[in-house]
């Protein structure tokens, strides 16, 4: 409150304060940006965040390692499976275990599906904010298919909680693979349609080229990761640079932009969708049978039918639920390439049932912190375009 009051005192009558958000169609979540305007030119943009702060890190300190998984769903809720995967990878790094081949492959499969869905939201909604409604409709049909696939696999569309420490909640069901194959064909066609509507569209060019441009040094200095960093010309992708889950065995390219503006971010995301489809196709080709969770009774829960029929399994179940896993003492930072950039989990363990400290490093917080620099001197309409291309998800921004 004070920040606005002070600016209002300094106003000389020509400047105006406009609130963008916290509840505004283009903020997609509860973000508030205080814009100081001269005419329609932005002099100052002050983001105010925290409207969705619910203390995820504090809660994590009071939940066991397995119990934290549903909270990761609610970080980036557009691609919740990727958060599940990122968190499970971090705890597995702390435990020092390797998960079964099939679990790795299915994790890659669902992560890439989630990346496509997330980029669809970003590109589609960015276009809607700028005024191009049609592309959004073509793309969102595919997003529905992805969520149907998630529902098949995990039982839920958005809050999937699909991973467990040491593997997955369950194997993908029968019928998942043929439906994914059909999705690959249809999604490819939908991306083509979207590109026909936007990529060479002069209005789209006018609205996006040169808007929010950023150079590679600045992008790194602001802590950019993910598509926004790659659009600025830095070919940094953790799937290639620091491979996890066997990403080094897949054949895919990293699209890189040159100017870092909204148009380049759009192009990078569209190409990443195509590359993700390529990875999914390779996963489907090599998917091998086997267990989807480590068979270590000290880490993963025994199957239900054994719990009901065997004494040892019942004991393992009881011990895991009541006492939790035996965790080593130490600290790890594990990062995965989520749809928005580097999603990191820093876990400090004191050997107890719960993490001593769990830190989520959200990819969009550093990106959003550069908002003022990105929109200074532009028009309100451009601020909306930049905001959309940054793909700010309040769930992971505020935690």
């Amino acid at each position, binding site marked *: 409150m*004070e920040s606005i009051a002070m600016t209002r005192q300094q106003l000389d009558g020509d400047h105006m304060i406009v609130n963008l958000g916290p509840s505004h169609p283009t903020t997609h979540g509860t973000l508030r940006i205080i814009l100081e305007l001269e005419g329609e030119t932005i002099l100052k943009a002050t983001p105010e965040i925290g409207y969705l*702060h619910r203390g995820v890190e*504090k809660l994590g300190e*009071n939940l066991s390692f397995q119990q934290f998984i549903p909270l990761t769903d609610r970080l980036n809720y557009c691609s919740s499976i990727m958060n599940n995967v990122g968190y499970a990878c971090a705890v597995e790094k702390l435990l020092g275990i390797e998960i079964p081949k099939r679990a790795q492959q299915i994790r890659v499969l669902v992560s890439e599906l989630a990346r496509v869905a997330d980029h669809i939201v970003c590109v589609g909604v960015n276009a809607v904010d700028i005024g191009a409604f049609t592309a959004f409709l073509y793309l969102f049909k595919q997003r529905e298919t992805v969520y149907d696939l998630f529902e098949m696999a995990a039982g839920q569309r958005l809050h999937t909680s699909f991973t467990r420490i040491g593997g997955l909640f369950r194997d993908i069901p029968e019928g998942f693979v043929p439906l994914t194959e059909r999705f690959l064909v249809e999604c490819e066609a939908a991306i083509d349609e979207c590109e026909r509507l936007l990529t060479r569209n002069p209005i789209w060019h006018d609205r996006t080229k040169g808007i929010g441009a950023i150079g590679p040094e600045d992008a790194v200095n602001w802590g950019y990761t993910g598509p926004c960093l790659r659009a600025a010309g830095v070919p940094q992708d953790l799937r290639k640079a620091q491979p996890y889950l066997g990403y080094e065995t897949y054949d895919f390219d990293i699209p890189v932009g040159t100017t870092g503006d909204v148009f380049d971010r759009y192009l990078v995301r569209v190409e990443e969708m195509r590359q993700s489809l390529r990875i999914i196709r390779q996963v489907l080709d090599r998917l091998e049978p086997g267990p989807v969770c480590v068979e270590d009774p000290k880490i993963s829960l025994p199957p239900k039918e054994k719990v009901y029929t065997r004494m040892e399994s019942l004991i393992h179940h009881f011990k895991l639920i009541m006492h939790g896993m035996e965790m080593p003492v130490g*600290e790890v930072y594990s990062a995965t390439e989520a749809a928005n950039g580097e999603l990191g989990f820093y876990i400090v363990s004191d050997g107890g049932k719960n993490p001593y400290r769990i830190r989520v490093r959200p990819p969009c917080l550093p990106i959003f912190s550069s908002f003022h620099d990105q929109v200074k001197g532009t028009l309100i309409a451009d601020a909306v375009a930049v905001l959309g291309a940054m793909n700010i998800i309040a769930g992971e921004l505020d935690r």
Partner: protein
Amino acid sequence: MIIEHIDAQLPGAITDRHAFRGDQTIVVPKASFLDLVDLLHREGFQLLVDITAVDWPERPESQDVGRFDVVYHWLNLASQERLRVKVAVADGEAMPTLTGRFKTADWFEREVFDLFGIRFEGHPNMKRLLTWDDFPGHALRKDFPLDGGDPFCMEGCTAPYNNGERA
């Protein structure tokens, strides 16, 4: 790699080190922290990935070990090497800001101030980031109650506001 460089160029700066599960961690005293940051920046650690803190209220306060660890994660984009730097600070002690060198430090430092109450000296806008200005206490301290206590001060607040000063 980088740790040998640090040992060579800032001898004695590292007071503790370990490499658990392949994560390189070094502990440095606050006095040599800024020199270390200069060195890291020169050596290519230009992406400041994260700043956070860990509260250890049980830890005995002595000359060089304070209540909090401020934890920095750096990434070298050229060599893909990661480095974790930890600096111990006591309750009420301030850290030097990195906003001059890394713009991304701005919000990360505000978040650490908000949730732990560690101030950063020289920060241009040392205000809370996630909670509101009048919020009583600092939520990620171990002595902050899990249910949030009385954040709206319905029963009259006794907790300190922003370390004693009201916004």
